[in-house]
């Protein structure tokens, strides 16, 4: 099982939309896919109409008190299952800190179901914390949405610098992509050009800013299910092809 985290230090960059739509595309391709909603806000769970509640909360998951498989929920789509969010995940840092090897804990939590799925996508909360470090150790790749703005690019710099530090937890591939792109904005065009020259591993696919993505909250489903011909749906499909070919 390949583990891919949709991650960014910055919030509001399209992490959850990416995680849900990429997981859907993965499942559509025939890969058995698990989406783990690690964000206590539970937006990914909400998008898939699954109640953001896990029996025993984050504590039970981290301490492996019950089999993970019993907490999984099937989505409305073939090949796609969800490990829902739980509001107690806001204390996940503390729960991990109570374990002996906190940064390897999430990898151990996923181990029992590793043979059951081809891909696990983790939808992470913004910020950089002990949970983030556990995500880095568990992941084969971090998919980092970057809005073409200076602050967003700056957090990508911060992330790569952190991962390059000696003794950093995990060495996942960092695959960034331009998110919420508006080509009418000159700033976006200039920032994208600068990003291309920056030396970061930037994927070719760009996801445009679009109301179709915002409507995920209304439809509570991946974009491709209600707007299959939209630019956003096409972009997520191309993005998944690009990411899966890089793993």
């Amino acid at each position: 099982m390949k583990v891919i985290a949709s991650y960014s230090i910055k919030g509001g960059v399209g992490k959850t939309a990416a995680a849900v739509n990429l997981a859907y595309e993965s499942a559509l391709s025939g890969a058995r896919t698990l989406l783990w909603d690690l964000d206590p806000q539970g937006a990914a769970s909400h998008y898939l109409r699954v109640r953001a509640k896990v029996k025993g909360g984050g504590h039970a998951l981290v301490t492996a008190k019950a089999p993970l498989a019993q907490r999984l929920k099937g989505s409305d789509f073939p090949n796609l299952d969800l490990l829902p969010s739980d509001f107690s995940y806001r204390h996940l840092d503390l729960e991990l800190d109570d374990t002996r090897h906190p940064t390897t804990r999430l990898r151990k939590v996923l181990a029992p179901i590793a043979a059951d799925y081809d891909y696990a996508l983790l939808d992470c909360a913004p910020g950089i914390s002990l949970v983030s470090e556990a995500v880095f150790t568990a992941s084969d790749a971090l998919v980092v949405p970057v809005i073409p703005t200076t602050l967003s690019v700056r957090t990508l710099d911060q992330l790569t610098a952190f991962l390059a530090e000696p003794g950093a937890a995990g060495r996942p591939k960092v695959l960034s992509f331009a998110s919420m792109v508006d080509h009418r904005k000159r700033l976006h065009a200039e920032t994208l050009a600068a990003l291309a020259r920056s030396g970061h591993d930037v994927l070719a696919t760009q996801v445009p800013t679009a109301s179709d993505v915002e409507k995920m909250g209304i439809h509570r489903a991946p974009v491709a299910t209600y707007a299959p011909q939209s630019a956003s749906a096409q972009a997520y499909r191309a993005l998944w092809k690009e990411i899966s070919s890089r793993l």
Partner: protein
Amino acid sequence: MVCLLVPPDLAIEEVLGALARSRRCAEEPARTVRQTWLDSFDWRLHRRGWTLLHETETHVPEVPGATLELLPHASTGTTKPSQPGPGQPVRIWLPGQSLPTHPVDLPPGRLRQAIAEALGVRCLGPVAGTLTVRRSVRILNADHKTVAWVLVETSTLSGRLPLGTRVRLMPVLGYDRAALEVSSLLEGDLGLQSAEDLCSAALAAAGRRAGDYSSKLNVALRASQTFDSAMRALLSHLMCTVEANLAGARSDLDPEFLHDIRVAVRRCRSLLGEAAPYFGDLAEPGGPIVRLRDELAWLGEATGPTRDLDVWLVTLDEELAGGAPVPDELGALREVIEERRKVAHRRLVAALDSPRFRELMKLWADATKPYSTGPANTGPAGDVVMTQPAGPIAAELVIRAHRRVLRRGRAIATGSPDAALHDLRKAAKRLRYLLESFESLCPGQVLDKVVAELKALQDNLGEFQDCAVQAASLAQLGRDLATSTAGPSQALIAIGYLVASLETRRVQARADFAKRFASFERPAARQLVTSLARGLASDPRIKGAK
């Protein structure tokens, strides 16, 4: 998954109404779908416990496509809790509506990989087809999340023969309670009974069943059956195997059709040869058994060139997959061999379409008729044996074939010619075919042990002979190409590489032979064959080979 049959006196609307009254539901628009179940000719997916379903809409949608689903064999039991993992179906969407025939027709991924591993060199083909009107009902919770699916499906065999209406209840992972409640409604309140799954029903309606073809010689003989009757059953089975594979071999769908024909021909020829002393006048020169054997030899020769080229292609592909250092050259040789194979296949089809082949099949059919009505059937001692029980005669044949293997093997020394090993290989094959023919009369555990001992020897002899023959044939191809004006140099380099590789394997097999044969002829292994023959004849006094 639960599969239930809607009785003819219960209207579909009553089922849907009962669901709507008890649960929050959403019905999708009704669809008519064409369902085609795919498998290899010899049911390789079925044997792994899988069913492969290709489904298309009957009206061509805006974006033409199909779904392909690999799922475990259908269960007709009660609701089982859904579990994630390999037991769960894998479904993908395919662009276009044509049926896939080879794994390369599928997008890369787990489904393609699983199918490719199961199929080997075989291709996919349709085994059953239905036309189904489907009404899908989603069972929803308060968030309008689907917690179970109920599919009400009215099917016909390819639009003709009615196959009834089924209700399929499909649980969603993590929502088992909802599925149990719906199951209770369908099975309890509405009284629906478990149904045969649609694929099995479609097969049955077409006069088939899953797994109804195997290349194995699985003829169930009875201990009381006469030798005459047993022989007819075996010859008939082998003839049916050839007939079943003719269309696939002509169409060149995959190489196994031809391979199965050749194996059936060899088995039949070997069986007739072994049993010749018991056929009496029928096996005299010019008699029908001798003529049939001769014609089977002709068919073996007529099918040989295509099969040899198939084996070369497989060898090339294995070398390419194994990271051979000359991939471009092997690719060039592959093109040359493919061209030659096209020519060889055209000749093969001409042979299969020839009057001689039709005459051969008539001879074969005649051989499956009762012998006792023909000339006197006397055994080696002059007594009439064809009407005696098959077991003791089979035991005699096995003992004799075993002695032949031991005699030929013991005559082989370090400097013996290759032909001596080839003769031993043929003797070992004849023994193996006898064991397969009378498998149903043999004591099972002893048979498995005897076959394991024999197989170890056959693998060694097969490796030696195949490498020797392939190297010689490739060397000849190389000479042909070298003298032709258009002889591609890359292909010649590949031939040099392959011949060297085959020669290394041949030498190794020759070096291993003594050890393998010593194991086969050790007293414990010989005693196994004696025990087997005693079991076959139900006679503990039978003496085996020394």
